């Protein structure tokens, strides 16, 4: 079975500051990380591979050339190979053009199961996974919190919503979008880091995709951003009644989940 995991390199939102004069994000010197929901998707795939070593994991990302280092890291965590779709002609893509590009690449790469993170912490659209599924004509299950069982024919997962959980089964192949809280991603290890440099990060460009130039990149992106601004904060409050120890753990967990603290 071949699992393809879609990942995005994003700025570490815990390290970002806002320029007081312009109101924009200061990205200079901000370290890049693998988007947390995507990393959980990779870990979910690796756990399936732990149980069944015949599973092959390919990681796919669309982004600038420097995203190659992140893909190398996914191999050092246990993926078999990786693909970086990178081309100036694909730049400036919104979710519509991105999903079209990814779908075209996925057709070339091949897959039995596609796992994408729910959403990226730099855009928070949660659109790329579902759109990619639509473009490939595949069933999709979003907000996956646990993969319960997978066979070549069907997959059963737990989907977490705010108020409820659903156990859903889909035919294969299908697209899952995963939540960062579903697991604790493993560390790389020294042996796999050494080996990762012998495993390929394949580079794909526009020329590999069988797409028209008008439907990719900026030209293929109907989204136009007119202005960005900071919303007035009217914090939603919840009241908990619990012992101090539990309350402290809940606060720490929540802040960590929101990427406001890392430790």
């Amino acid at each position, binding site marked *: 079975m071949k699992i393809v995991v879609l990942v995005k390199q994003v700025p570490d939102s815990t390290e970002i500051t806002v320029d007081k004069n312009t109101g924009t994000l200061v990205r200079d010197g901000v370290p890049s990380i693998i988007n947390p929901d995507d990393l959980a998707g990779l870990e979910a795939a690796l756990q399936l591979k732990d149980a069944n070593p015949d599973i092959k994991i390919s990681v796919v990302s669309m982004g600038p050339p420097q995203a190659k280092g992140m893909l*190398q890291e996914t191999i050092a965590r246990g993926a078999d190979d990786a693909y970086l779709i990178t081309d100036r002609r694909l730049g400036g893509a919104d979710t519509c053009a991105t999903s079209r590009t990814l779908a075209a690449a996925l057709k070339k790469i091949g897959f039995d199961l596609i796992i994408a993170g729910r959403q990226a912490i730099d855009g928070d659209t949660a659109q790329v996974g579902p759109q990619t599924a639509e473009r490939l004509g595949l069933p999709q299950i979003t907000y996956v919190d646990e993969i319960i069982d997978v066979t070549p024919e069907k997959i059963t997962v737990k989907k977490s919503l705010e108020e409820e959980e659903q156990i859903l089964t889909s035919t294969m192949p299908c697209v899952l979008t995963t939540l960062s809280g579903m697991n604790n991603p493993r*560390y*790389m*290890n*020294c*042996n796999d*880091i*050494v080996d990762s440099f012998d495993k390929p990060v394949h580079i794909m460009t526009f020329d590999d995709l069988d797409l028209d130039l008008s439907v990719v990149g900026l030209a293929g992106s109907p989204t136009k951003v007119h202005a960005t601004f900071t919303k007035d904060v009217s914090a939603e409050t919840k009241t908990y009644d619990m012992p101090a120890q539990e309350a402290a753990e809940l606060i720490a967990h929540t802040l960590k989940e929101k990427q406001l603290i890392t430790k």
Partner: protein
Amino acid sequence: MDFNLTEQQKMMQKLFREVAQNEVKENAADVDESERFPKENVEVMRQAKMLGIPYSREYGGAGADYLSYILAVEELSKTCATTGVVLSAHTSLGTWPIAQFGTDAQKQKYLPDLCTGKKLAAFGLTEPNAGTDAAGQQTTAVLKGDHYVLNGTKIFITNAGEADVYIIFAMTDKSKGTHGISAFIVEKGMPGFTFGLHEKKLGIRGSATSELIFNNVEIPVENLLGKEGQGFKIAMQTLDGGRIGIAAQALGIAQGAIDEVVPYVKARKQFGRPISKFQNTQFQLADMQCKTDAARMLVYRAAMAKENGEPYTVLAAEAKLFAAEVAMEVTTKAIQLMGGYGYTRDLPVERMFRDAKITEIYEGTSEVQRMVISGAVLR
């Protein structure tokens, strides 16, 4: 000349940083306070395959370079110098002599378990009456048929009790002085091998430091490491490498102290502004970082010389001497910048200050390093 880490070394550094910051840091204060060996950190290192970094894959190591291992000691020591020395003593002092001087059979028998972290290793040279003057060994090994009979006592042995494999030095021929010392691979559990006093120390309080007692311990002849009489050479060469590890530990302690001070001076307000706005704070920090970076260059240079098969005895001595003294200076200044808060055990810099002191003492005191360096200068 290239001062940049390779892509592989950078990825290793990232892993070590994640392990140190996410796993090791949170229990460092408890390890110190309760003087307990950090078993959970050893387990994390085992999972991340950090216990055999510079050794070949054939023997269960990662097959990475020596600088990558040094980066691991540095990153761990930024948060917990105890964990840093557990790795350094295991890798440089306990495992390296077997990898370097062991027979094929000895390597096959011991390295896989050591490199995968299934077992820890240690090194026993120092005795109550033989410290810097290592030639004054009173432990003896007498050949009787197919085994040596080992008698004597070693003190201040890092990883004692926690390690399963010990490189032990003993006199096999007193008449030959240093040429009469031999090295042996001794296993925990051999009849007559026991552990004595557990030292209570100023710093690195979680590191297991104990006495090793050998009372008629029968060591099979196949556990002689190298040839009879090569022990002193093996010990000195092993310590040359070990010093790079301790230099990396000192470097990590210094950088770790700076990393603690920076957010503090930005947050701490006096006279209506953060103390980071005062020139004294700025200049102190400039000196601290500058000296730490200079130490880093010396440490990495020694590691690369070792990796490249170049002479590194003097480079290792320079790295250890300088990094250890920088660690003392930087941690002293770190406490001063943090004032009364820095002096309390609620913040980690006082621990770093206590931990730094040992780097001027073990694996050759700063005075010994000066002897090595001046010997080369005056040659």
